[in-house]
């Protein structure tokens, strides 16, 4: 039980942090690091970066959503009000 709670907290924290992390990656100053005219395999670095972060966001959101769903299935009985 406790272990499950601990994991839940981890997932919830991740769910809270994710938008801020993605936001930070896509806003200046961080994005300016990759805003160089260099090419990687013929593709501008910035294009790879922005689409890469985007894909990363999709994958992370997917993983978090799946874990939260698992948690809901397991945890409904023990924690009816616990969504908040």
């Amino acid at each position: 039980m406790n272990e499950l709670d601990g994991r839940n907290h981890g997932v919830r924290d991740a769910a809270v942090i994710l938008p801020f992390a993605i936001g930070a990656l896509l806003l200046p100053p961080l994005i300016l690091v990759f805003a160089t005219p260099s090419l990687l395999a013929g593709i501008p670095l910035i294009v790879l970066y922005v689409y890469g972060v985007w894909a990363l966001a999709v994958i992370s959101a997917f993983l978090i959503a799946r874990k939260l769903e698992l948690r809901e299935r397991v945890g409904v009985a023990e924690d009816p009000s616990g969504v908040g």
Partner: protein
Amino acid sequence: MLHADFVIASCLIYVAILFSVAFAGDRKARRNPGGWLSSPLVYTLSISIYCTSWTFFGAVGTAARDGFDFAPIYLGPMIVFTGWWLFLRKLVTVGRVHQTTSIADFISARFGKHSGLGALITIVAVIATAPYIALQLKALTDSYQVLTHPAGAIAASSTILEPNYSVAFWLAAGLCSFAIIFGVRNLNVNEHHHGVIAAIAVEAVVKLVALLIVGLWVVISVRGIPAEIFANAPVSLMRPADTFDTRWVTLIILSGIAVVCLPRQFQVMVVENSSERQIRTASWLFPLYLFLLCLFVFPIAIAGLNRLPAGANPDLYVLTLPLQEDRPLLALLAFIGGFSSATSMVIVSSIALSTMISNHILVPLALRFSIIPTNSTQSVRHFILNTRRAAIIFIVFIGFLYFWVSGTSEALAAIGLISFCGVAQFMPSLVGGLFWRRASALGAFAGMAVGFLLWLYTLFLPSFGGSAIMTAEVIAQGPFGLEWLKPHALFGLAGFDPLAHAVFWSLFVNTALFVTISLITEPTPLLRLQSTLFIDVFRRQTESELRVIRRTARVGDLRQMAERVIGPRDAMELFSNVPAGERAVVASDELLGQVEQRLASHIGAASARSLVSRVVTDETVSVQELKRLASEAEQIRAYSEELESKSRQIEEAAAELASANRRLREIDKQKDEFLSHISHEVRTPMASIRSFSDILLSEPNLEEERKQRFLAIIQKESIRLTRLLDSILHLNQMEKGQPYWEVALFDPDRALDQALESCEALAESSGVKLRRVKQGPPVLVLGNSDKLAQVFINLISNAIKHNTDAQPLVMITSVSDESAYEARIADNGPGIAEDDRERIFGKFERGSNAERAGAGLGLPISRQIIERFGGHLTLAASRPKGAEFTVRLKVARAPSDVLPLRRSVS
């Protein structure tokens, strides 16, 4: 080119498919509302109406002109959706629980069902959305005209075409009928527009597939080689650092706000939501949808720049590229994709806005001016449904009108972002309403109204590019030449992108007013109740749990009113629990709440409230409940603080307990030692007594002299034993605080001299010299002379007995002044070890190196006696040789000090 008839036929077939999907969806929903219709996939696809024709055509256009400038419009929503746990989850849950009908309903319900707020939001939404609808009509018309232009698409897209308004008109009419047929079938918004949503989902798939196919075709045509795809990329893509400026940040924030606040987004995301599962899936699926939609934006844009003539309109590359390469079917697919994105946006927007207009403007007005016909049960329903139909026609017509008036001007191109900024004015109230208890209706209203005006002034009106409403001169120099009022540099804030400038000012002032006014206004009971219901949505589910406001109404009146709005069948169901014969009986608070909630899902919370109020005969606010509600948050905080302080107290208590335990153990040890000492002290004289009596008994013929000596020893030891027992009892009594001697005024020096006398014999036998010194005048102290003498004897005899010096000496000094008397007994013996300095005052402690005669009770008893006299017995600070004990007593000076005391003891 494609023949117009062919294009129209294709469109009609496509529309027919949409109609049948919508019909099928509605029919299935009537039989089984669950199933695929409420699947997270369909839900996510419906959210993709965010991507209008502005995306479908415009993203490529923007990418071709400005590189990455197209992306933030999708990155903002992506971030908001991946952060669904923080905000969207709560928003959607509140909307679902409270059966919200629109964003206007949501905000007005939160702020005490404030009808003015709902009306304001509706007005802002209509003004911001109408041009957006016009933009869709223009995109549709443009794409149709380019596709069917007799001179070829390239030529068409390179020239400015006179819009074909008849095409636009028929399109608008068609969209109206679709929206009316599928959007206004039922009053109850909460029954969801399953048909529309199903059709929208199909359109979402069509536009994605169309764009993906065009993109894949472009990539394949250069054999997928990245270097070739990105050859001759837009300049800004090769100098990307310039892109990520204030505008980039503004666009990400603005689009993140818009994906929530746009009325159509709120409609599909919140109003049509039926479970948390849907939003959870959308949290990653919608970002994925956006990702796929944007995947080929650069390849298409670069291909357009490379292959099409320089003058070709980048906004139509998606359409003109296939035509250029002679792929008419691909072009038709692209056209259908654009058609899909435009039509779905117009349909959902008009439905969402019509609900808002009907619930927040027309119904309240009708209620106020008693326009609603009240003679039959069906008429109210029909009235409301008709207002919605009219509202749809009105909205689409306004859009068409806007398109017609603005014509070929550039005004439409930027309208998407301008519209975003308009609806962004809802955001502070929306967020504040969900998370901030103090947020008030007046604050929300003032913030939104001023934000709206600022938006109008700094962004919307200037977008007409110098029309009659706002001339070019005003834009350039400010009204009446007032520089600080320049729309694009308000209050001198110059040098910013006009959009960033407007977003900043409108949202900043909006938020500031919202917060400030909320802080200074006192919330109404209803507002407090609503704010708790919204903010604590995950803790409470129904209003009935909170009995803040108690209302009474006659059941009959209530039922009649409900029947008019929701129809007799639903009303019967709603009132099924009320016994038939009790129509005139007063309705319970719970029933009133249920009825109001049901009405709210039809006509919005504010209108429902005012409708119910008409039959309510009595309304009382429970101050106690209100207090409870208001202070709940504080209570929780206070509770946790209390817990903290409790746990601190417990910790302190535990520490105290531990130290008490330690002390107890020490006392226990002391007690053991005490008993051990007592035993030893008793056994020693007993041993002599026993031994000598043994001798006396076993030797009756003992010579007389010896016999006498032994008997004397026995006597002496018996007395010693008695004294020992006496002093134990004495000490015990004193510790219990029972003085048992008489108190009188006496000269302490006399007691000292008396003690000295008693000890002279002992001193002589031990060879110890006694020296007596006296300083100061004779004084009187209060106490018992015999007891003080006993203390002195004890101290002096100790000093004699423990003195092992070759020339043992004991100094007895007394010093007195008018306030204190001090006697010092000092010896030149071995002294007292540092460790023993306090211990010697404990019972039976005689210092570790002094296991000698004496019961070890002398010093503690002496100290007790002196303290009882109000004085102190102390051991002087370490000396090189010997020990010095000091007895310090207070001098009783005036007779007045003495007399009452004497009386008290007599």
